[in-house]
């Protein structure tokens, strides 16, 4: 007999883990499905969680690296169910997401920041504004224990120290608070490929494992493939799930479903369900897509020190006199010891850097669904911030007499946002001020797909603030199973 669930949360990243944690703490019966595995990190070992899968390292680096590679025209590469990255290639903009319990918290750069604009949440829908969202930022920053490194503290690679006397560059900027355990840190292996020692604070440890003790039912290796309305109460939604361990489909009925599978997969689910004749027209689906102005450059800077040590990011920098925008951060090849690389190349890369840039694009991209595939329409020419970022990167190279290399015509993002955005009329978005999909009581979007605009800053705290807001609504309006 198919299971009957009260609240089903799909996904365990910055959206799903927040909803699951807050609803469980309030005494709700919550089931969370995550397509990936628990990660084998020291905090998870200490908690004794079973069936952990390694982060990419050594001989198994490639096997544990890629969960899925998909794209237009049926592009599909075999991948591993314990892989870390889910890549959707599209000529207009490629999307890179993560997989596993804790979601993006394993692969992000630990920067815990607010949006560039203090009025980010204002004017999108009645019932959501900057003032009401502020406590959610405070809560999440508290959960992450986030703080910025201090000058002179001795954090390896910190731009506040490294660039203090630099003639062309400065780090005298608001440095991002980091969700990082500075006490006793080795400052190694806490990169985009995860943090096996737990130096980078992750949501599996901070929110999900504690919620398990309060009754959260979290199931790994369960990938949701479709959502349908049943037309019946109280179980209004039927959910198709692929069990990666048993390699079979099964079906669940749920009173309430919270979509938090990450922008890419939440949108795939909504598009696929709509294409199958479910969920109605959803006229605003796919609108307002943003890459958060992401641009990444290889900075061939030949630094004397070993830049592969440090926090996940070394911190912000800018050209002297260039102001606060765009948002540029420096990274070393942190985690390089775990990559299967020839030793000479490894030695060389230790002294090079990566520049990661973000900015407020216009969130004017559009996603669509064509023969079962997601398509991205995104015009860089309509988003001048991208040109500004490229210009700044070029200026850094020229100003420092070093090589800064980046892709100009192949946009990609690790911060896909929008597509099921918060909006007031249903024609312009997908969810209302409570995160509820227009016309579908009990079906909510609680991840970055619902964001109404590009934060222009590392978005993890903004993504987390939204599900905190959605959870409060679910708990206070009586819309509970």
């Amino acid at each position, binding site marked *: *007999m*198919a299971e009957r669930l009260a609240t089903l949360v799909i996904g365990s990243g910055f959206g799903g883990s927040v909803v699951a944690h807050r609803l469980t703490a309030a005494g709700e019966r919550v089931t969370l499905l995550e397509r990936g595995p628990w990660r084998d990190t020291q905090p998870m070992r200490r908690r004794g969680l079973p069936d952990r899968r390694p982060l990419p390292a050594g001989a198994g680096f490639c096997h544990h690296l890629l*969960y*899925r590679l*998909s794209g237009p025209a049926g592009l*599909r590469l*075999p*991948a*591993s*169910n*314990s892989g870390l990255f889910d890549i959707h290639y599209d000529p207009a903009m490629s999307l890179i997401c993560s997989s596993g319990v804790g979601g993006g918290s394993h692969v992000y750069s630990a920067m815990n920041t607010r949006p560039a604009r203090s009025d980010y949440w204002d004017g999108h829908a009645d019932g959501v504004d900057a003032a009401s969202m502020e406590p959610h930022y405070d809560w999440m920053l508290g959960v992450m224990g986030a703080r910025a490194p201090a000058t002179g503290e001795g954090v390896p690679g910190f731009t506040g120290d490294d660039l203090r006397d630099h003639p062309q560059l400065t780090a005298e900027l608001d440095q991002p608070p980091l969700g990082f355990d500075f006490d006793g840190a080795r400052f190694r292996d806490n990169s985009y490929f995860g943090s096996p020692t737990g130096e980078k604070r992750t949501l599996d440890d901070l929110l999900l494992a504690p919620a398990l003790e309060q009754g959260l039912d979290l199931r790994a290796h369960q990938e949701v*493939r*479709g959502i*349908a309305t*049943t*037309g*019946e109460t109280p*179980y209004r939604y*039927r959910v*198709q799930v*692929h069990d*990666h361990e048993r*390699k*079979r*489909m*099964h*079906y*669940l*009925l749920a009173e309430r479903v919270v979509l938090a599978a990450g922008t890419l*997969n939440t949108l*795939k*689910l909504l598009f*696929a*369900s709509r*294409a*199958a*004749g*479910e969920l109605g027209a959803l006229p605003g689906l796919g609108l307002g897509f943003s890459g958060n102005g992401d641009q990444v450059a290889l900075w061939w800077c030949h630094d004397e020190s070993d830049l592969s040590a440090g926090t996940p990011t070394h911190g912000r920098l800018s050209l002297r006199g260039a102001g606060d925008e765009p948002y540029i951060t420096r990274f070393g090849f942190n985690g390089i010891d775990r990559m299967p690389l020839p030793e000479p190349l490894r030695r060389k890369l230790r002294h090079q850097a990566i520049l990661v840039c973000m900015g407020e694009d216009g969130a004017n991209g559009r996603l669509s669904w064509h023969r*079962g*595939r997601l398509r991205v329409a995104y015009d860089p020419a309509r988003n001048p911030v991208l040109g500004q970022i490229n210009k700044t990167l070029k200026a850094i190279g020229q100003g420092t007499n070093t090589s800064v290399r980046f892709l100009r015509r192949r946009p990609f993002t690790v911060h896909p946002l929008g597509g099921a955005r918060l909006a007031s009329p249903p024609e312009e978005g997908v969810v209302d001020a409570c995160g509820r999909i227009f016309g579908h009581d009990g079906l909510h979007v609680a991840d970055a797909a619902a964001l109404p605009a590009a934060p222009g800053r590392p978005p993890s705290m903004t993504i987390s603030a939204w599900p905190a807001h959605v959870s409060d609504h679910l708990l206070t309006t009586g819309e509970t199973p």
Partner: protein
Amino acid sequence: MQNQNVIPLHQGRDALLGHDQTELADLFETLPLPERSPEGPWHGTLMAITGLQRLPRGLRAGLARVLDTPVNPWRGKTFDGDRGSNLWLPGLNRHFAHYRVEQRDSPVDGRPVLWLDYDEADNPRPVRGIRGEARWLRTGVLLCRMNRQDRGGRLHTLLYFTLSRPDHG
């Protein structure tokens, strides 16, 4: 370990072709009764046939697609109030195997189902033991289970099939 399906699937007919009987029983149990009794001709697609359950998912789906061509003389069913019959390729007995239609609780899962009872005097004896069950898969598509009732009254699932209204293939 490989991903079995890269594209998000859904409960559309094609997505079900590779399902086995256990998976379809799981889905079938969650489905509601048709909003109203079906009328007229419905196109049928066979899947999850007993004896083929151990085949790989892709092969099962491929066979189901082959059986959805004129290789298979069975074309579907037609409904007329509380009666119905099966549809076959032209040249054969177009309405071989009749059934009565009623609403009742399924003896398999205890939930309401549209019950197709082949225990009719004008059916050949082997056909009289067939008991069909149908529920809404989605608008215009029914998911059905074909069972055989043994002498002890127990039901054994033989296969599943979908019935699609001509305008909802």
